[in-house]
């Protein structure tokens, strides 16, 4: 059932974004660019992240043409490298402070990639794993203090229907030996759901332990399933056959603007923070896969990821 989100709810969520600080990765094309436009249009201060200086400038010009008074700032970083993610977090903090703010209201981990071949990053991680999963994990970790400082902090991770019907391959999590691009992609999207669920469990504990101080801490993480969207994702880093399949498939997809509406809704809706649901599609909650809700799996993945990033997450 594809119920359209009610436009008044969306309007309300959008208006709520006025004056809020939003960080969104992958803001130079597809869903990320669409979401950036809409949020900037509602008067949010949007910090968009892209990987190419040129595409960032193009996106910025495009948005300023739409909304002359838009408050936006673009930063570049190659999210496939953890050391770049760390540097980026520092740049984001600087940008936020320069704007006279001391918090981030919304973090959208949207950047994602697809790679036909096994490609190892300079740090020895598989490319899709690094961009789609490790980067969101580390960026969230680095920005968490600023998100906690917001009146309502929201973390929105992009997953997808491809997280269903797959598992974590513990013995070879980056599929070094038997790489299959689709399986590798599916696994990163599953990892995003597991990460989000575990993050919420941890934030919940943090929340409970702080309740006595009467400071109302409101912070939650969500997953967005954008559905099939007509973007360029399947044309980047892929070879002939995959390009061709994506060409056929993506034509049936919805437009990026429509896919962005769930992001806007989760970023701005005043009531959604009280919801216990984590997986959202078309502004409605949906059941994620059973496997993605297993606490043991999430914890094991979490600890493995901490080790990869060289961090220890204390709440």
């Amino acid at each position, binding site marked *: 059932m594809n119920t359209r989100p009610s436009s008044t709810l969306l309007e309300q969520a959008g208006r709520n974004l006025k004056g809020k600080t939003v960080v969104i990765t992958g803001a130079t094309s597809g869903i990320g660019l669409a979401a950036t436009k809409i949020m900037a249009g509602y008067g949010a201060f949007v910090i968009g992240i892209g990987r190419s200086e040129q595409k960032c400038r193009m996106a910025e010009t495009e948005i300023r043409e739409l909304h002359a008074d838009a408050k936006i700032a673009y930063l570049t970083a190659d999210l496939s490298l953890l050391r770049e993610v760390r540097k980026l977090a520092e740049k984001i903090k600087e940008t936020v402070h320069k704007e006279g703010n001391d918090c981030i209201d919304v973090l959208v981990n949207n950047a994602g990639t697809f790679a036909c071949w*096994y490609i*190892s990053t300079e740090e*020895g991680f598989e490319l899709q794993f690094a961009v789609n999963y490790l980067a969101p994990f580390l960026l969230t970790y680095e920005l968490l203090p600023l998100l906690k400082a917001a009146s309502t902090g929201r973390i929105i991770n992009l997953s997808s229907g491809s997280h269903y019907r797959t598992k974590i391959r513990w013995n070879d999590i980056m599929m*070094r030996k038997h790489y299959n691009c689709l399986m590798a992609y599916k696994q990163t999207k599953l990892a995003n759901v597991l990460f989000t669920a575990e993050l919420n469990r941890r934030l919940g504990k943090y929340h409970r332990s702080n309740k006595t101080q009467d400071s109302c801490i409101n912070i939650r993480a969500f997953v967005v399933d954008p559905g099939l969207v007509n973007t360029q994702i399947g044309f980047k880093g*892929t*070879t*002939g056959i995959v390009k061709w399949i994506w060409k056929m498939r993506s034509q049936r997809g919805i437009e990026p603007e429509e896919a962005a509406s769930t992001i806007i809704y989760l970023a701005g809706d005043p009531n959604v923070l009280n919801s216990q649901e984590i997986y959202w599609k078309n502004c409605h909650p949906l059941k994620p896969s059973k496997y993605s809700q297993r606490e043991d799996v999430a914890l094991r993945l979490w600890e493995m990821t901490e080790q990869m990033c*060289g961090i220890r997450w204390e709440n």
Partner: protein
Amino acid sequence: MESYVLITGATGGLGKAFAVECAYRGWNLFLTDLSEEHLCCFATSLMNTYAVRVIYSPCDLTDAAERQKLLSHIRSCNISFSALINVAGLDYEGLFSDRSPEQIRTLIRLNIEANLEITAEILKLRNRIKPFRIINVASLAAYYSMPLKAMYAASKRFLLSFSMALREELRPYGVTVTTLCPAGLPTTPECIKAIERQGFAGIITTKNVGYVAAKTIDHALKGHAVYIPGKLNQLLRFFSSFIPSVVITRFIGSRWQRAGENKLQKPEHLIWNLWRKTEGVT
């Protein structure tokens, strides 16, 4: 004294795959390659992820003086080695007559001279308690004379021949020498493009680097002489040994030339065209 595995060319595609595989098996690493920055970033990540010790030292292996500096650094670390993986190597594609004297020297120095010198020195520092493994990365090209890759193929043949002999010499001392002879490996965007340029044949003779690295180490641990990844490559190698080398060389020459001009003919034509449109591989 702790045992380490020395890997040259450690931040390249295959080098990284070997390093990750060794680290996954819990082995300490000594890495070398050109760029200090890349080495540092990779080493930190390996130490975090796999909880092993990693030492690194940048070195331009084509430079004899730098090699000496590297070797004395290694000696000063006071460590022993359980394996040596010689990955560093380079290739200039194109006509031999287009090569500059500098390029000719560089290729011989890196592919042959550096390899032999490092091998000789590291052998002295091997851990005598257990078998010592040497892995030399040659190429399927070691078996053929290849027009447009003439020096490269010949240097790899040198390595193959040398490794086979060394293996026999050192057999009584518990040292094994394994030569890896891969066809194209999709490691860097340039490699991927080159493989795709060869059309369908390039694609199906290609294996995943992570798989190749893991399998090579398995073969080395068993003391095998040569490992050619992929059943098809093994078959090719086997049957081509019955064909006169003049014929094979002519055939390879024409294939490469056509690949360069982007017009491989039937029956590969159709599939070839599908794979050909690959701009933007990242």
